[in-house]
């Protein structure tokens, strides 16, 4: 059975050019970038070239990029590093209720250590309000961390405005760009971004490698200790194939950003129009326009997401859901709840996230398959039957 992969916000297939580069590096560049002889120099060059590439995509300087093990580590490092590094100024951080768990759980851990955290609410589209951000800033605030685009809904935050406010108030600004790096135009100077997280596996790179942009002059404490690598902020022998792969993935993503972005937007809108035309009682989760080109989050009323996922999987279609039943904690998506979704609506949510390999034909197959799947699950649903009865049907 041909499979249709529509969960690119979870992870992406590795681009063939990236895979080639990773394999080449594994075979040929085994050197330790911290050594002086030829193997080491070659390794160092490879790391530096990747660093240069990753920096150039966001208008940063090479030495401001640190390699990490992925988005989670970058987020942890940024939040903890700035929090610990500015204790003499204060112990207050600002974030939002819809951040990735890598941020939220780090904040919660810091709260236990005596830091204070303000979690900004979001509106029905999942956007924070700038007024509320301004009001939340205090003399002892040391960090604002707000994600660029949300992984579940794709809603894009007004990062430039947030950056301006942070700069005016002299507060460091971190943004999790795991879902936007290489997809949306980012310039750290124009947007006043001080720290930014990247993960390779969301942009057709390998898993377990990422980067943290850290503006020169930002006060940070390391959270890991060891050798001298990565300005002592992130010690440890470099993950050479990972770094080479991330560099290649960044290169390809930025090269194709415009064309691929427009292509994905067309596909996403085709999918949305197809769903709207064929399935009643649905709603869009996320901002209608200020949203990632590849992300469509839809709730199908009266049905539950896991059962939709299983049914679609039987047809080879791979998607995600914010349903409580799909999470190990058995709680519905914190993002959808923060947007004011009632639990039933979160229950019936599906996230379609598109990527490079997807074609129009695939989207059309999904549009064809989905109504039957939803209809079957609705035919079992006591909620749907109640609804029909109320309608007098």
């Amino acid at each position, binding site marked *: 059975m041909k499979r249709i992969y529509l969960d690119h916000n979870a992870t992406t297939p590795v681009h063939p050019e990236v895979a080639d580069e990773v394999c080449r590096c594994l075979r040929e560049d085994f050197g330790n970038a911290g050594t002086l002889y030829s193997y080491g120099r070659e390794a160092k060059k490879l790391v530096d070239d990747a660093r240069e590439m990753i920096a150039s995509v966001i208008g940063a300087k090479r030495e401001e990029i640190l390699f990490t093990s992925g988005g989670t580590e970058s987020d942890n490092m940024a939040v903890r590093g700035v929090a610990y590094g500015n204790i003499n100024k204060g112990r207050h951080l600002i974030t939002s209720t819809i951040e990735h768990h890598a941020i939220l759980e780090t904040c919660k851990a810091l709260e236990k250590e005596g830091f204070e955290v303000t979690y900004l609410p979001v509106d029905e589209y999942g956007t924070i309000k700038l007024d509320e951000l301004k009001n939340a800033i205090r003399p002892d605030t040391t960090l604002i961390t707000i994600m660029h685009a949300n992984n579940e809904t794709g809603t894009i935050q007004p990062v430039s405005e947030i950056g301006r406010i942070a700069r005016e108030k002299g507060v460091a600004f971190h943004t999790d760009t795991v879902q936007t790096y290489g997809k949306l135009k980012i310039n750290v100077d124009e947007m006043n971004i001080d720290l930014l997280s990247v993960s390779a596996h969301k942009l057709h790179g390998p898993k377990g490698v990422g980067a943290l942009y850290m503006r020169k002059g930002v006060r940070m404490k390391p959270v890991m200790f060891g050798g001298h690598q990565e300005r002592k902020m992130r010690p440890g022998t470099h993950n050479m194939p990972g770094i080479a792969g991330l560099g290649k993935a960044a290169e390809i993503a930025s090269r194709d950003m415009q064309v691929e972005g427009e292509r994905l937007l067309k596909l996403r809108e085709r999918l949305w129009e197809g769903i709207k035309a064929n399935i009643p009682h649905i709603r869009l989760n996320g901002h209608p326009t200020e949203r990632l080109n590849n992300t469509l989050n839809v709730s199908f009323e009266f049905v539950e997401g896991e*059962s939709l996922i299983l049914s679609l999987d039987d047809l080879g279609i791979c998607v995600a859901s914010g349903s409580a039943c799909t999470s190990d904690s*058995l709680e519905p998506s914190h993002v959808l709840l923060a947007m004011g979704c009632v639990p039933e609506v979160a229950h019936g949510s599906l996230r379609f996230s598109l990527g490079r390999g997807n074609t129009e034909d695939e989207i059309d197959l999904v549009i064809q398959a989905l109504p039957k799947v939803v209809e079957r699950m609705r035919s079992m649903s*006591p909620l749907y039957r109640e609804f029909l009865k109320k309608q007098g049907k």
Partner: protein
Amino acid sequence: MYSEKVMDHFRNPRNMGEMENPDGVGKVGNPVCGDMMELYIKVENDIITDVKFMTFGCGAAIATSSMVTELVKGKTLDEALKISNATVAEALDGLPPVKMHCSVLAEDALKAAMEDYRSKKAQAFKP
């Protein structure tokens, strides 16, 4: 993560649908994740002669509802009372630990339906 049996019952649920004039109805909600199950039974001479269900929930919830209907059909009320969530899960070749609560929903729905039948019957016999 689900056994083939679970997937079979999920794909082809047995006894799914509403029942006309049931003798007992059990409606339960899952306090853990917010799902819902309804079970309807017909009883003749203390034997469950027919049973149907409707479920709003995950794959395990649908499969356990389907399985519980298979297990109780033709059983006496006393036999049916002995069916626990573990019985249902076992009959499905097991469930992932995080999904055991879904089988509790199935047991609760069955018990609620039998309770409803008993109380209706008690009402009917009141002089």
